[in-house]
């Protein structure tokens, strides 16, 4: 019975979108991709808590609001102090309610970063986009990836040419205007060609409070010996739904470093998939969720050791206050021929109130024998002896709690390589911990 309801929900969604979405004029493969995804949506349904991967994350309230696409996208004026954590010179791409807005974006002048729109691909970009778009984020098994792909209206493709280091960070800023209760389906593809290097900051912000739905997909292709440093900051409105899928392909001897922050949204779900696809590929993926009130933040990561001699490191932390609920599921797969794999995963969680809840599920699936794999998870409160120590030096109990909470999260913030962003994150978490 529930299946019928969900099908119904998706059907209505697709119908209303079909009416308004224009086909891409110039690029036929995009239309093919969308058609395939649309066909796939028709045989999928929205997940429920009876699905293993959604056990702890109840998104049934999603169907209470239709969340149409924004009817008009107005040119906003962004206050760079308030609306973004990244004030230093960057190559900035701005999306508003899911749509890429060139007028708000500022691209670099040199040749180290090439940006093009999916709706009007220049020839050089087209072949790269065609090769990777929709290939990394698989829509066969994920209704949200399928929906994003099917409803993809526009998006961006960013290319860092071979053996080039991007001179400044690339900043992809996703703005929810909050004017109406709308849905955004932004799409981004980053291609770092072999030997290239880039830092990319993905930031989600809301201009005002209110319900909204974001269903974002980001694909990252990292060519041989290339390096991508990825920082993700999710600061959606407290009433928002935020669903995001990131899929990254790491080629031979390439490296991917990622730090993700989940601060906002009423319900957020972040699926991160990394495929170590060539020998000697490495990744480090760290995360911090800081939630309170009735927020739910769910992080699902999947690191696929698909080749020998690959390394992965992961440290994920959650700070859960009041009646909030943190979820972490981290799967590491070591394929049969992936000898000499070196994988380490840690998940540490801090519960700040009696009602706070954390569900953690680390999973190692190892099919090779000559490997070094370790994982561990802890759930705890602030250390009583540390609190007493600080208090015995005059710090009020609340100040001591805040300092320890800040220190717990600080370990992840310290991994952010962009100095100005790191400082803003520090200020943000200081302010947040002072309130809670």
């Amino acid at each position, binding site marked *: 019975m529930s299946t019928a309801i969900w099908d119904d929900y998706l059907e209505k969604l697709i119908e209303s979108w079909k009416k308004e979405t224009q086909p891409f004029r110039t690029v036929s493969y995009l239309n093919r991709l969308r058609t395939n995804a649309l066909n796939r949506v028709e045989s999928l349904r929205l997940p429920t808590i009876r699905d293993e991967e959604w056990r702890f994350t109840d998104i049934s309230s999603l169907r209470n609001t239709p969340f149409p696409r924004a009817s008009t996208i107005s040119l906003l004026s962004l206050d760079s102090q308030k609306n973004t954590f990244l004030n230093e010179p960057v190559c900035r791409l701005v999306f508003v309610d899911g749509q890429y807005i060139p007028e708000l974006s500022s691209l670099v002048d040199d040749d180290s970063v090439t940006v093009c729109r999916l709706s009007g691909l220049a020839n050089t970009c087209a072949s790269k986009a065609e090769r990777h778009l929709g290939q990394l984020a698989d829509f066969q098994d994920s209704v949200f990836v399928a929906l994003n792909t099917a409803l993809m209206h526009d998006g961006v493709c960013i290319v860092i040419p071979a053996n080039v280091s991007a001179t400044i960070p690339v900043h992809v800023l996703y703005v929810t205007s909050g004017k109406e209760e709308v849905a955004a389906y932004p799409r981004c593809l980053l291609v770092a060609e072999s030997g290239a290097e880039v830092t990319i900051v993905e930031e989600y912000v809301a201009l005002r409070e209110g319900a909204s739905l974001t269903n974002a997909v980001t694909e990252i292709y990292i060519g041989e010996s290339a390096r991508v440093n990825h920082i993700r900051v999710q600061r959606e409105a407290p009433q928002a739904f935020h669903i995001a899928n990131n899929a990254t392909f790491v080629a031979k001897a390439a490296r991917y470093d990622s730090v993700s922050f989940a601060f906002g949204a009423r319900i957020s779900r972040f699926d991160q998939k990394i495929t170590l696809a060539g020998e000697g590929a490495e990744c480090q993926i760290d995360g911090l969720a800081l939630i309170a009130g009735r927020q739910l933040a769910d992080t699902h990561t999947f690191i696929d050791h698909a080749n020998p001699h690959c390394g992965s490191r992961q440290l994920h932390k959650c700070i859960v206050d009041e009646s909030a609920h943190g979820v972490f599921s981290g799967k590491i797969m070591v394929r049969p021929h992936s000898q000499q794999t070196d994988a380490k995963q840690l998940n540490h969680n801090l519960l700040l109130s009696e009602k706070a809840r954390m569900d953690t599920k680390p999973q190692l699936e190892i099919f090779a024998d000559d490997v070094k794999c370790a994982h561990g998870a802890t759930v705890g409160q602030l*250390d*009583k*002896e*540390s609190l*007493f*120590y*600080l*208090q*015995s*030096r*005059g*710090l*009020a*109990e609340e*100040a*001591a709690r805040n*300092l*320890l909470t*800040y*220190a*717990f999260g*600080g*370990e992840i913030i310290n991994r952010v390589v962009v100095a100005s962003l790191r400082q803003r994150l520090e200020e943000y978490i200081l302010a947040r911990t002072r309130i809670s």
Partner: protein
Amino acid sequence: MINVNSKTLLEVRDLHATVGGAEILKGVDLTVKSGEIHAIMGLNGSGKSTLAKVLAGHPSYEVTRGTLLFDGHDLSALAPEDRARAGVFLAFQYPVEIPGVANNQFLRLAYNTVRGQRGEEELDPLEFDDFVREKMKLLKMNPDFLDRSVNEGFSGGEKKRNEILQMALLEPRLALLDETDSGLDIDALRIVANGVNQLSNKDNALILVTHYQRLLDYIVPDYVHVMEAGRIIRTSGKELALALEKHGYDWIHADDQMTEARP
């Protein structure tokens, strides 16, 4: 230095305290006046650290009977931070490591809250940096310890020095040093003892918990107490420590004739 006219800083009467349901302190009596230096000795497990934690207000310890007065006020009603602000300081036997909190940040917060409470001006990071570096010289501490996380990865001796650095910053009226000498080599012991002596004056008081005479060679106590099974069973002058070192604790029971300097 004993001065009959100086005022009483700490008055402990028939103090009973429990932790985890077990009674550890079973009637401690202790009076400390300003200007005095007291040493507390006693076998492991006799309750010395428990007394220290009860004084500092550790939440796991419960006072079940008796009184605990500091400067005439009931200490047991105060939160740990209020005791610190009132001028009580405990140098921990096992200082706590706090990863992620920079030592200089911690020291400055402690300084500003405790000294600020006394109406003194708070110091900003730059001013504090100059100030703390001066204090570190007194203890011959490397300034690198400012940038590290509080006590994290410090050796035993480095942790103890960091405790005395905090004492130097906070200038307490009553300091209890719980086995600060354990884990210090002879040079470090001399440096730390020297620092403590410089902080000692007629308006404050010191309680040293120690197992060794060597500390008391540098910081000479006015009184030596022996603790056993949660009580102070003997109080005398500094010669008591020498006798204990020579004969061991059993000797106290053999020599029940010994007169007490102060009941």
